């Protein structure tokens, strides 16, 4: 049951403001979609911690900060951009919520494959956007999603043609510029992997360190029969920023979907990853989150096993240092018809300080009788025996602890097959452990 809460004056004014500047304003179907979302947001506002699904994450700092939509993209330093872009990818770059054609390089794509920004490609791909927009999101608490639907300024439209493989990964780079302080970027992505296609999409989120902004992003994904989509998200926002992100997906029969979620940035963040699993589909959800200082990182996952014979494997790991807090809420729902489901969920947390906190809440709801479901969670400290062992071989205490912390994260890093992404994740990891002698070669 949802708990009604009105948006504060600032956001109420934002949502009811003139939308004629937003893309697709002339389209009746889109106007009515935005209108509906605006009305729902006006009635419901942002989620409150009284909602069960938001119990551990209080977004009141976002309400208090009164972020406003950026009106145009700020300048991005060339070196900064270089640090964000992954080698050997098709790139779409968005700055402060607006597509930047001059910074992007889509390059050559196989026939029938669409990789476009909403703002520039709407006329050509309206049908695609219309069929996907708001088609996959299904959650009880829609506050941020409604806000996104009502006000999205841009985003990516991706469609992979049937029986087609896109060799290079597609990177969607979302950047907040230096001038983006107190601004809000609101992008919406839709991704369609048509039958028997194969592709990799990487979303990255970066901002200039020290600046305080809000990213509110929603990605909707459809994976058609026998298609294979790998979706990765690297969140490395400024440590003063706020990030609310959602990935909502639908897997058709025999579809394969792998979602990898790496969270390092933002003072307060949440990533929702939801999947509805069709018959005999195969879903992987892996995550790594690392919190330092006062960071609050919320990973919220849901696997709806709706049809028989589907497989899901979920593995999230978190490291919380200083006064940070990590939240993991993972829910698996196995419907009555979803016989022969095979679902595994695992969440492991490492606490590096007495003031750090991890809240982990696995939930299994099983309505079918012939299924395999397993879940495990742990919250722990570094193993004293292992520290002693390393020290007895000549590693000093700090080095021993760093090695073991790295080793804990390494299990997730090792799974990253894409070399350019792996390097970026390692860079983030190293940034968080700048102590003496930390080296990439340790991993």
């Amino acid at each position, binding site marked *: 049951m949802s708990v009604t809460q009105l948006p504060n004056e600032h956001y109420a004014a934002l949502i009811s403001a003139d939308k004629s500047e937003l893309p697709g304003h002339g389209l009746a179907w889109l106007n009515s979609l935005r209108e509906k979302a605006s009305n729902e947001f006006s009635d419901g506002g942002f989620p409150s911690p009284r909602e069960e699904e938001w119990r551990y994450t209080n977004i009141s700092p976002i309400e208090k900060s009164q972020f406003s939509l950026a009106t145009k993209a700020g300048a991005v330093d060339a070196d900064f951009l270089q640090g964000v872009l992954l080698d050997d990818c098709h790139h779409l770059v968005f700055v402060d919520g607006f597509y930047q054609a001059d910074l992007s390089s889509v390059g050559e794509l196989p026939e029938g494959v669409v990789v476009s920004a909403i703002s520039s490609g709407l006329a050509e791909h309206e049908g695609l956007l219309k069929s996907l927009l708001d088609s996959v999101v299904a959650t009880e608490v829609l506050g941020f999603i409604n806000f996104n639907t009502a006000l999205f300024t841009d985003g990516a439209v991706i469609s992979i043609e049937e029986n087609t493989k896109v060799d290079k990964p597609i990177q969607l780079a979302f950047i907040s510029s230096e001038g983006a302080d107190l601004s809000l970027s609101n992008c919406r992505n839709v991704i369609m992997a048509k039958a028997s296609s194969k592709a990799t999409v990487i979303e990255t989120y970066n901002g200039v360190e020290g600046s305080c902004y809000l990213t509110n992003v929603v990605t909707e994904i459809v994976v058609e029969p026998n298609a294979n989509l790998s979706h990765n998200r690297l969140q490395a926002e400024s440590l003063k920023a706020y990030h609310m992100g959602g990935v909502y997906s639908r897997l058709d029969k025999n579809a394969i979907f792998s979602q990898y979620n790496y969270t390092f940035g933002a003072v307060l963040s949440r990533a929702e990853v939801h999947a509805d699993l069709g018959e005999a589909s195969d879903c992987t959800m892996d995550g790594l989150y690392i919190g330092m200082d006062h960071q609050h990182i919320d990973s919220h996952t849901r696997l709806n096993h709706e049809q028989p014979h589907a497989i899901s494997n979920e593995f999230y790991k978190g490291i919380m240092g200083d006064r940070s807090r990590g939240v993991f809420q993972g829910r698996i729902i196995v419907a009555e018809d979803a016989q022969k489901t095979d679902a595994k969920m695992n969440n492991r947390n490492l606490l590096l300080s007495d003031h750090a906190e991890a809240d982990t809440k696995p939930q299994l709801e099983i309505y079918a009788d012939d299924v395999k479901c397993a879940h495990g969670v742990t919250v722990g400290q570094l193993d004293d025996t292992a520290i*002693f062992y390393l020290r007895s071989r000549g590693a000093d205490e700090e080095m021993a602890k760093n090695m073991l912390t790295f080793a804990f994260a390494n299990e997730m890093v090792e799974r990253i097959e894409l070399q350019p992404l792996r390097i970026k994740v390692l860079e983030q990891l190293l940034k968080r452990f700048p102590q003496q002698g930390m080296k990439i070669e340790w991993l």
Partner: protein
Amino acid sequence: MLKIEDLHVSVEGKEILKGINLEIGKGEVHAIMGPNGSGKSTLSYILAGRDGYNITQGRVLFNGKDLLEMSVEERAWAGVFLAFQYPVEVPGVSNIYFLKAALNGIRKFNGLSELDAMDFIGMVKGKMKDLDMDEKFLYRAVNEGFSGGEKKRNEVLQMSVLEPTLCVLDETDSGLDIDALQIVAEGINRLRDPERSFVLITHYQRLLDYIKPDFVHVLAHGRVVKSGGPELALELEEQGYAWVDQKVAS
């Protein structure tokens, strides 16, 4: 090299070592034998510096310095090495990196430059061959998924790479079949050196069939109840530890 004087140690109020006196000279091999619960492993952990033990009396001198005042890593840098009875698995840290970091830590302490990667790998591979270890172990996580025998071999490999001056081996023979025992013992024998001393802690005589000790000490109920030459180990093997208990009782 090592001098233990009237060492008393308790854990949670219970006295485990009740006045140990031992002197180990350069190049000597000492075996410490004793039944389960006699305090053998406690002694090895005290030498390596593990937390959780209360040293109530006595002192330990290593080359004239107070060993008990040194941190775990300082002891390693100074040349103390404990081969664990149960080597610890460290998932996520590769054997090669671990060895390299450990060796360079010790070299740095001794004012030596870091070994470059090529020289290091060449040196380690040679030592692995001696221990009949497959090179693939270098790239696996430290001890993770190793069999009991592989873990023990890995301990001896670390020892031969780090070249300590005092080697304490805690039940190194346990979990080894006869082939592995021979290989491990040969590895240890290769390291024997006039400048290097060994303390072999063992329940059974069988390791001593391959590594001949200069001295044997029998530990029981937290005390050294008898010291002698290699023949003492054979005597124990024949008569069992019940004989020690009788001796203590009388």
